[in-house]
C-alpha cells in the first residue's frame, strides 16, 4: 500500500488496476526534454530484451516540467507500459534549496518507491534522465542481482577515466568505506536498484518529509541500507556521460551539497560506525570495461594557486577546525614548489575527519565551513595529479587503495575525538 497523500487517488486507482509487476524502472524528470527520450528508449529496450517474460513497468515521476518532458518520453516509448505521475518539487512546509539535476529529487524518489511498493515489485531500479550514454544492458546489470542473487541494494560502478571523480575518490568512497565498512566504489553513482524488502524499509522512515537535496537523498538511501545491514552489491556499467547543457553546480556548491549530507549522515549514524572495524569488499557483477588512458590537459598550477590563496586568507576559518600539526603541514605544502607539492594521506584524512568533527560541533557556520573546504580539496587534487601524472590505471588504483587504508587506520582518531571532544584543543 502507498503512503497516504503521496500518490494522487487517480494514480492509486490505476496502480490497483495494474495489479502487481516484477520490475519497476523509475525515471525522475524535471525539464529533461533533450535527453529523456534516449534514456526511456534504452530502459524500455533493456526491459524487453532481458525481462520480456516478466511483468514490468516504467514509472516516470515528473516535477512539473515546462518543456514537454513527459510528452517527449511518451512519444519515445513504443509500448503502453508507462505510468506517469506528478510530484511536488517542494515538500509541504519546506523551502526547497535549488540543486543541480532533478529538482525535488526526494519527492520524485518517494513517488517512484511508493508506486513500486503498491505494485509489489520484486525489484525497482531508478535511472537519471540526463545521461546520454545509457544503454539497454544497464537495466539487466542493475536488476539481475536483485532478482537472482537476492541483493537488496545495487550501486552502479561506472567506467571512469583514472583521474575523473576526484570528490568521490578522495572523500566519499574512502570515507564511506572506513566508517560503514563496505568498499563501494561509487556511493553517489546516481542510479539505484532496490529490492522489495528495502523499499518497504525506506518508506517506513520519516526522513521523507524534508527535501534532502540532490545528493542528500542518495547518501540517505545508501547509508540507510548500510546501517540496516541490507545486502549490497555493485553493477559494473559503461561510462556515464551527462547532457552538456546541464553544467551542474560549481565546485564550491557541489562540495557543500555533497559534504553537508555526508557529515549529517555521519552524525546520525554515529552509534553504527563506531562499532565497525575494518572493511570488506562488496560483490560486483557485470563486465569491467577498459577505460581511456587519454589525459586531457589539466591546469594543475591553477589548483595550486587556489590552494595557496586559500592558505593565505582562510587560516581564521581553518584554525579552529584543524589541528596544529595539520596546519603546520598545510603551511609546508603551501610553501613548496610544484615538484614537491604533495599532501600526505595522513594529513588529508585528518583534515576530513577534523571537518566532520567541526561540522558536528558547529564550530562556525556550516555553510562557511564547507565552502572554505574548496581550496583544501583543490590542493589534494593538484597533489594527486602531480604524483600520478605518469601512472596508469592500475597504479592509480593502488594509490587510491593506500588512501583508503589511511582512512581506516586513522579511524580511531575520529572515534576518540567524537567521543571525548573536550579532551582535544585545536
Amino acid at each position, binding site marked *: 500500500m502507498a503512503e497516504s497523500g503521496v500518490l494522487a487517488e487517480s494514480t492509486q486507482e490505476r496502480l490497483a488496476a495494474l495489479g502487481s509487476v516484477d520490475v519497476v524502472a523509475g525515471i525522475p524528470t524535471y525539464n529533461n526534454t533533450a535527453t529523456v527520450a534516449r534514456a526511456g528508449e534504452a530502459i524500455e529496450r533493456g526491459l524487453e530484451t532481458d525481462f520480456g517474460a516478466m511483468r514490468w513497468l516504467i514509472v516516470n515521476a515528473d516535477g512539473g516540467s515546462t518543456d514537454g518532458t513527459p510528452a517527449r518520453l511518451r512519444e519515445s516509448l513504443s509500448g503502453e507500459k508507462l505510468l506517469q505521475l506528478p510530484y511536488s518539487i517542494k515538500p509541504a512546509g519546506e523551502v526547497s534549496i535549488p540543486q543541480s539535476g532533478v529538482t525535488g529529487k526526494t519527492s520524485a524518489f518517494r513517488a517512484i518507491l511508493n508506486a513500486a511498493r503498491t505494485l509489489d515489485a520484486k525489484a525497482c531500479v531508478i535511472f537519471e534522465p540526463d545521461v546520454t550514454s545509457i544503454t539497454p544492458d544497464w537495466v539487466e546489470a542493475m536488476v539481475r542481482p536483485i532478482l537472482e542473487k537476492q541483493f537488496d541494494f545495487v550501486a552502479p560502478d561506472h567506467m571512469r*577515466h583514472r*583521474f*575523473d*571523480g*576526484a*570528490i*568521490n575518490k578522495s572523500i566519499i568512497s574512502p570515507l564511506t568505506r572506513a566508517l560503514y565498512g563496505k568498499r563501494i566504489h561509487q556511493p*553517489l553513482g546516481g542510479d539505484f536498484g532496490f529490492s522489495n524488502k528495502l523499499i518497504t524499509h525506506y518508506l517506513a522512515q520519516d526522513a521523507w518529509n524534508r527535501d534532502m537535496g540532490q545528493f542528500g537523498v542518495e547518501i540517505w538511501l545508501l547509508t540507510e541500507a548500510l546501517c540496516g545491514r541490507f545486502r549490497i552489491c555493485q553493477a559494473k556499467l559503461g561510462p556515464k556521460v551527462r547532457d552538456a547543457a546541464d553544467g*551542474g553546480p560549481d*565546485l*564550491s556548491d*557541489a562540495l557543500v551539497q555533497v559534504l553537508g549530507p555526508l557529515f549529517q549522515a555521519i552524525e546520525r549514524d554515529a552509534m553504527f560506525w563506531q562499532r565497525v572495524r575494518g572493511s570488506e569488499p562488496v560483490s560486483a557483477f557485470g563486465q569491467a570495461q577498459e577505460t581511456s588512458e587519454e589525459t*586531457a*590537459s*589539466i*591546469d*594543475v598550477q*591553477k*589548483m595550486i*594557486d*587556489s590552494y595557496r*590563496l*586559500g592558505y593565505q*586568507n*582562510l587560516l*581564521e*576559518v581553518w584554525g579552529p577546525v584543524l589541528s596544529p600539526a595539520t596546519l603546520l603541514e598545510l603551511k609546508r605544502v603551501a610553501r613548496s614548489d610544484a615538484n614537491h607539492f604533495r599532501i600526505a594521506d595522513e594529513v588529508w584524512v585528518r583534515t576530513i575527519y577534523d571537518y566532520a568533527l567541526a561540522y558536528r*560541533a*558547529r*564550530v*562556525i*557556520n556550516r555553510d*562557511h565551513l564547507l*565552502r*572554505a573546504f*574548496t*581550496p583544501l580539496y583543490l590542493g589534494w*587534487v593538484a597533489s594527486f595529479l602531480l604524483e600520478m601524472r605518469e601512472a596508469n590505471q592500475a597504479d592509480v588504483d593502488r594509490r587510491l587503495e593506500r588512501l583508503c587504508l589511511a582512512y581506516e587506520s586513522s579511524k580511531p582518531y575520529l572515534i576518540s575525538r567524537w567521543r571525548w571532544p573536550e579532551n582535544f584543543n585545536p
Partner: protein
Amino acid sequence: MWKQVNEALTEATRRVITGVANILPGMLALVLAVLGSCLVAVILKWLLERSLRSINFDARLEQWGLSALAEWSPGKSPTRLAGRVVAWATILLGLLVGLGALEAGLASQLVMQVFDYLPNAFAALVLLFFGSLVARYLARGVLIGAVNMQMQSARLLSLGVKWLVLVLTAAMALEHLRIGGDIVKLAFSILFGGIVLALALAVGLGSKEMVSRTWEKQSKESSKDAEESFHHF
C-alpha cells in the same frame, strides 16, 4: 559695633556648622552606600563568574555561534564580561542610593534621567552586538567566496564589507544614544561613501587585470579551462 560683629560671626559659624552637620550624615551615607555596593558587587561578580564557569559558559556561547562576543570581552572571556557588567551595575545602583541619601530631590531627578536614557542605551548596545555579529558573518562569507573565485583582493573586500557594516551599526547606535546629532550623520555619510569609493576603486583596479586576462584568453582561443576539462564528480 564689636558686639554686632561678634554676633554676625557667631551666626555665620553656627550656620556653617549646622550646614555641615546637616550634610554630614548624607555624605557618610553616600560613602557607606558606595563602599557597601562595591562589596556587594565583588561578591556578586565572584558568585556569577563561578557559576558561569561551572556550566562552561564561554564554550557554550561559542557552540551557539556567539563567538563574536568573546572578541569584545575582557580577556576574551564572556564570563568575565558578564561579571564586570553586574559589578558596575551594582556600584551604579549604590551610587544612586547614596545620592538619594545626600539630596533626595537631586537623586530622584538623576534616577529619572538615567531610567529615561536606559532604553536608548540598551538599544544601542543590542545594535552594536548584532551589528558586530552580522559584520563578522558577512566578512567571512565574502572572504571565502572571493577566495573560491580566486580573487587576490579577497581580504580587502572582506575588510571593506566588515567596516561598512560596523560603521553603519556605530552610526545607528550613536543616533539612539542621541550623541553627536547631525555631525554623526555627516561623518557617517562621508565615511560610508569613502569606503564604498575605496572598494569600487579596489575592485575596479583588480577587475581591470581580470578583464584583460579574459580577453587575452579569448583571443588566443586557448584550450578549455582547467576546471571544465577535469570532472570532479
